[in-house]
């Protein structure tokens, strides 16, 4: 019974954090993009547009639920459901931290640990094509169909290098469970080089990591590979005919996939929740970073860009100060420090996503496929061969 | 001791010359062809000197060749005193003839082919004489038969050569059929093919009084011998086999292969000893073959034919010898015959070579000045074959005739008269060739050294070979049963000398007289000249009926009627009929097919469930 209660608590916690993350990820993206392009981004709803995600949800919920004629109703309604479900399922096996003990109950910081975790992730990601494909086909619209076909082809094509490159850290870790993979990367070479996959001997997976990230961009249909929804060619790709909450589902699934895949990248290549620095120093990094942010907020409040900044920034500063204090409490540290490292790595990768989106132009479709089959695939294969060779030899 | 090396060398020679001989120069071919036999000969000498007294048989087992039920045939080689004699003849005389061939074949085509075949023949002959069981002996037996065939057909672009080859092969097939039946009967009777084991088994059996299993067995084997050794009724191939190059006639059709039958009977003497009926038949067949060969020999004009019939006749003597139980005498005669008959053929070859291919006695004459060496050596050979005292033939022939006298005097008298005829026709040929005036057109010349040296060596052996005490050497194997018979000795020798004198009288001193005798004899002469019409009789009595039977019954009846019409066309018609009926199932509809598959699967599951699946 204990198992069920703990599981329910974990599910609720993870789900809440995950949904909030998805909502605010969109806000972050708009803000970062705006600043890259010398704009300000959302400002009106709440301070710095912080209430914007909430407003968006309200807008989408209250919009008229349009059902175009000539669509295949069943599949038209099924597609967003499939997409969002599959996107949200993967998070259930992502571990965020080590095994902890709260109130006499030992548990993993993870909804459930699966022996074949990485295979599960692959299975879900390979099945998630259906959402896109069905949406495009059932819309009974040639732009949608084109978008769907492109998307499917793209996802299938990039799944190959992705899978091949995932095998390399598996070879190093010798396990399929995400938790075990992450744990195999604990420790340091020479006392300061972390034993992460991208640094791990005998064959550092730096190239593997780069290939993985490129393939992940394509897999989640993000720029520069967002051909399925290329606005100027295909209107809006497979979700042209979708509106209101159904559109939101696709939107959410895209961001959920982004988060999931960055989590996987973190676990496979960046050592999961294992810190960058050895033990005593890494405990204070979180506090230091949060303190720095708090100080920056106060500094910004003294030189406000807009009038109301001098009221909002001190609040932020105080908030970050409290957070920094929280990370110094020893009885919370064993939970918070792994989470900080894990969240920090994921956040960095997500920022990279947005950064790339703001920087690179979109590929042409044939370039995209060409790139996948003639460059990425051989590279991944070569990487795999070399890794296997080195693992076998050493 | 590695006996297997003895036949290996000629085999190597065959492989080298046979595969790459076309690219070798003549010197290399000579080196390989003659050298391998020479090495083999030397190795035989080495082996014999090491095993010298050879009181007991020496054998080597290499591997099990056949293992089938109770029958176990090994690849075993055997060396006893009998084999030793044969080995020396085969490699020694063989070596001389190889050397002779170098000169004789100098201007012939297919030089490398000839030596490859000769080497192959030597290999098989060695296997034959060294075999330790009947089956291995049969391998050699068939191998030499095959080599004889390809060598008789050596001039394969000539119809007469290929015809003679075919005749040799087919006639031998008839004999070998009997021989293989004999082997089967041996397997059934003794459950083994090993000579030693057969001998042990036979020694416990009583001597057969009537016509029993052993008689049948030995006569079947003897049927093979009549084919291989040219006895009545299967001798007809040997005169035709003279189509082969003369060294082949000397080696295969005089000295070695044709004596295989005699060797076989000597080797299986323990069997024949237990079947007196068979022995009697062997002796009679040998005797009549001797008479037949000798009488035909008188009338022939082709020098090689004369010697061929002489070979038939002399082989008859050998069979007479073994038939009356004088195995050692038979082998003794085999050896001396190898010397003087090889010499006769080589001498004839020398004449033919010197006359550019002329073989007809009527176109020779007065060659003694042109070919002195050939003249002398051939004279020695003729004296030897005539049984003139002091020459080798006298000793061996006398041994046989003495034994025959002991066995049955009438055999002795016929044999002795035949000896006289032998002397007559041999010297007829000799005088026709070397005396009188030259009647040919080609300018005669003496042969080169490679040919004359073997002649001289063989002449020496023909002269002195009789002093080699072969019966004594073989006395351990075959007890000496013939005692010295002075009367027989004098009678046979005098018959031989009388024959020579008559020949000299008719062909040297009164050349016209022979012609008038010929005319007076008339029909008898024609009969003998046409070889008693045996070939024609065989043609009419065996070949033609067989052809007719094959054409009418086997071809038109069975092949066309039953196989073609019934089986071939019938099965085709049946398939077509079924196809007509079944093509309605081919509707082109995949779903129908699937339903049929389903029905079939159900049937299979049903049957398995009913019978196979229940545990």
């Amino acid at each position, binding site marked *: 019974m204990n198992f069920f209660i703990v599981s329910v608590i974990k599910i609720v916690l993870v789900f809440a954090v995950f949904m909030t993350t998805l909502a605010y990820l969109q806000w972050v993206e708009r803000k970062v993009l705006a600043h890259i392009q010398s704009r300000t981004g959302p400002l009106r709803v709440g301070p710095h547009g912080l209430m914007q995600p909430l407003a968006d949800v309200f807008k989408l919920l209250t919009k008229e639920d349009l059902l175009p004629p000539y669509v295949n109703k069943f599949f038209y309604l099924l597609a967003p459901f499939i997409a969002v479900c599959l996107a949200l399922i993967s998070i259930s096996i992502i571990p965020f931290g080590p095994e902890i003990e709260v109130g006499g109950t030992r548990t993993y910081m993870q909804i459930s640990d699966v022996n074949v975790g990485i*295979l599960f992730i692959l*299975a879900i*990601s390979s099945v998630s094509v259906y959402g896109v494909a069905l949406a495009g086909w059932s819309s009974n619209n040639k732009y949608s169909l084109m978008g769907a*076909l492109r998307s499917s082809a793209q996802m299938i094509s990039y799944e190959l290098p992705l899978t091949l490159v995932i095998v390399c850290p598996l070879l190093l870790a010798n396990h399929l469970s995400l938790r075990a993979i992450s744990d195999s990367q604990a420790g340091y070479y020479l006392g300061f080089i972390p034993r992460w996959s991208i640094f791990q001997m005998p064959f550092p997976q730096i190239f593997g990591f780069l290939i993985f990230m490129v393939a992940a961009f394509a897999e989640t249909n993000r720029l520069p590979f967002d051909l399925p929804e290329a606005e100027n060619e295909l209107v809006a790709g497979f979700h042209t005919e979708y509106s209101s909450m159904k559109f939101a589902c696709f939107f959410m699934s895209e961001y959920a996939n982004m988060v999931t895949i960055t989590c996987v990248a973190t676990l496979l290549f960046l050592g999961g929740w294992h810190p960058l620095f050895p033990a005593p120093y890494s405990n204070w990094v979180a506090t230091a970073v949060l303190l720095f942010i708090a100080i920056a907020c106060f500094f910004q409040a003294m030189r406000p860009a807009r009038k109301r900044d001098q009221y909002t920034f001190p609040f932020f500063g105080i908030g970050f100060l409290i957070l920094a204090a929280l990370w110094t409490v020893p009885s919370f540290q064993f939970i918070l420090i792994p989470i900080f490292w894990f969240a920090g790595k994921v956040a960095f990768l997500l920022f990279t996503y947005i950064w790339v989106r703001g920087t690179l132009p979109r590929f042409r479709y044939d370039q995209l496929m060409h790139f996948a089959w003639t460059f990425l695939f051989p590279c991944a294969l070569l990487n795999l061969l070399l890794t296997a060779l080195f693992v076998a030899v050493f | 001791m590695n006996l297997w090396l003895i036949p290996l060398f000629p085999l190597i020679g065959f492989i080298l010359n046979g595969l790459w001989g076309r690219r070798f120069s003549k010197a290399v071919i000579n080196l390989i062809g003659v050298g391998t036999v020479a090495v083999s000969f030397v190795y035989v000498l080495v082996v014999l000197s090491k095993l010298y007294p050879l009181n007991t048989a020496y054998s080597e087992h290499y591997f099990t060749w056949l293992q089938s039920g109770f029958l176990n045939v090994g690849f075993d080689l055997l060396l006893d005193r009998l084999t030793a004699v044969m080995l020396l003849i085969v490699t020694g005389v063989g070596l001389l003839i190889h050397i002779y061939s170098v000169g004789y074949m100098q201007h012939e085509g297919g030089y490398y082919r000839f030596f490859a075949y000769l080497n192959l023949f030597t290999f098989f002959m060695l296997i034959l004489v060294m075999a330790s069981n009947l089956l291995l002996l049969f391998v050699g037996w068939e191998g030499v038969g095959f080599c004889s065939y390809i060598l008789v057909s050596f001039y394969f672009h000539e119809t007469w050569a290929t015809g003679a080859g075919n005749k040799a092969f087919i006639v031998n097939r008839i004999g070998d059929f009997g021989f293989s039946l004999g082997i089967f009967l041996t397997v059934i009777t003794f459950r083994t093919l090993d000579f030693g084991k057969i001998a042990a088994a036979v020694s416990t059996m009583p001597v057969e009084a009537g016509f029993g299993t052993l008689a049948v067995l030995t006569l079947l084997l003897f049927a093979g011998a009549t084919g291989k050794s040219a006895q009545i009724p299967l001798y007809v191939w040997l005169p035709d086999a003279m189509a082969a190059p003369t060294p082949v006639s000397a080696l295969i059709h005089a000295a070695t292969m044709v004596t295989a039958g005699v060797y076989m009977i000597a080797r299986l003497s323990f069997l024949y000893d237990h079947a007196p009926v068979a022995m009697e038949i062997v002796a009679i067949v040998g005797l009549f073959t001797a008479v037949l060969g000798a009488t035909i020999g008188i009338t022939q004009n082709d020098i090689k034919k004369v010697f061929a019939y002489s070979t038939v006749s002399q082989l008859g003597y050998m069979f007479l010898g073994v038939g009356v139980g004088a195995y050692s005498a038979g082998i003794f005669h085999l050896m001396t015959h190898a010397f003087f008959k090889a010499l006769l053929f080589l001498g004839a070859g020398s004449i033919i070579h010197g006359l550019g291919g002329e073989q007809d006695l009527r176109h020779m004459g007065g060659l003694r000045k042109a070919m002195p060496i050939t003249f002398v050596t051939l004279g020695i050979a003729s004296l030897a074959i005539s049984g003139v005292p002091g020459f080798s033939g006298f000793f061996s022939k006398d041994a046989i005739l003495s034994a025959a006298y002991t066995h049955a005097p009438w055999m002795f008298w016929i044999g002795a008269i035949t000896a006289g005829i032998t002397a007559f026709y041999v010297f007829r040929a000799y005088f026709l060739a070397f005396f009188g005036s030259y009647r040919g057109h080609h300018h005669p010349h003496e042969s080169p050294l490679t040919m004359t040296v073997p002649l001289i060596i063989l002449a020496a052996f023909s002269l002195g070979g009789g002093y080699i005490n072969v019966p004594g050497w073989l006395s351990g194997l075959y007890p000496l049963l013939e005692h010295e018979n002075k009367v027989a000795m004098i009678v046979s020798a005098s018959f031989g000398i009388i024959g020579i004198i008559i020949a000299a009288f008719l062909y040297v001193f009164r050349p016209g007289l022979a012609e008038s005798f010929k005319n007076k004899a008339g029909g008898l002469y024609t009969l003998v000249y046409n070889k008693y019409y045996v070939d024609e009789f065989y043609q009419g009595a065996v070949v033609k009926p067989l052809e007719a039977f094959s054409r009418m019954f086997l071809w038109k009846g069975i092949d066309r009627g039953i196989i073609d019409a019934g089986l071939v066309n019938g099965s085709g018609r049946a398939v077509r009929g079924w196809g007509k009926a079944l093509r309605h199932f081919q509707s082109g509809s995949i779903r*129908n097919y699937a*339903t049929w598959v389903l029905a079939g699967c159900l049937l299979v599951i049903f049957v398995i469930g009913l019978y196979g699946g229940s545990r």
Partner: protein
Amino acid sequence: MIDTILFIIFAILAIVSGFNLVLQKHPISSALSLIGVMGSLAVLYLLLGAEFLAMAQMIVYGGAVMVLFVLVIMLLNAGREKGSTKSWFAQIAGLPLLLCLVALLGFLIRAILPPLRSVEFGSWVGGTAEHIGQLLFTTYLLPFEVISILILIAILGAVVLARKELD
């Protein structure tokens, strides 16, 4: 308890999807039904302790084979089936034969098989990646290599067949 519930849920899902596959007139409905069957079977494999196979089922069947089907259906825009009377034998004999098959299989399962053990989730997990890999690369190495060659041939064949003819 939980495994019984799971079995019943997914067995029913599989059977319903299977019926749907046969009864639906539109290929894409059939395809989705088939995906349903495959997903249910993956769960059943997990119950039977074949975790690697379950994931392989999802990746290979769910993620590759069926995606291919769906794409082809979309590409050819395969519509509803039309009635046909050409396969008269299938129409007449199909149903009786199917009933026979049902009867036979039922009989075989009932009559021939000895009583089998009951499935307890987690009592035996044989199909871990480790075990499968060990067996695959020792005992079944030759079939494995052969099958990889088969796949290579299939890829080439598919490329050759589906390629547009260049004039």
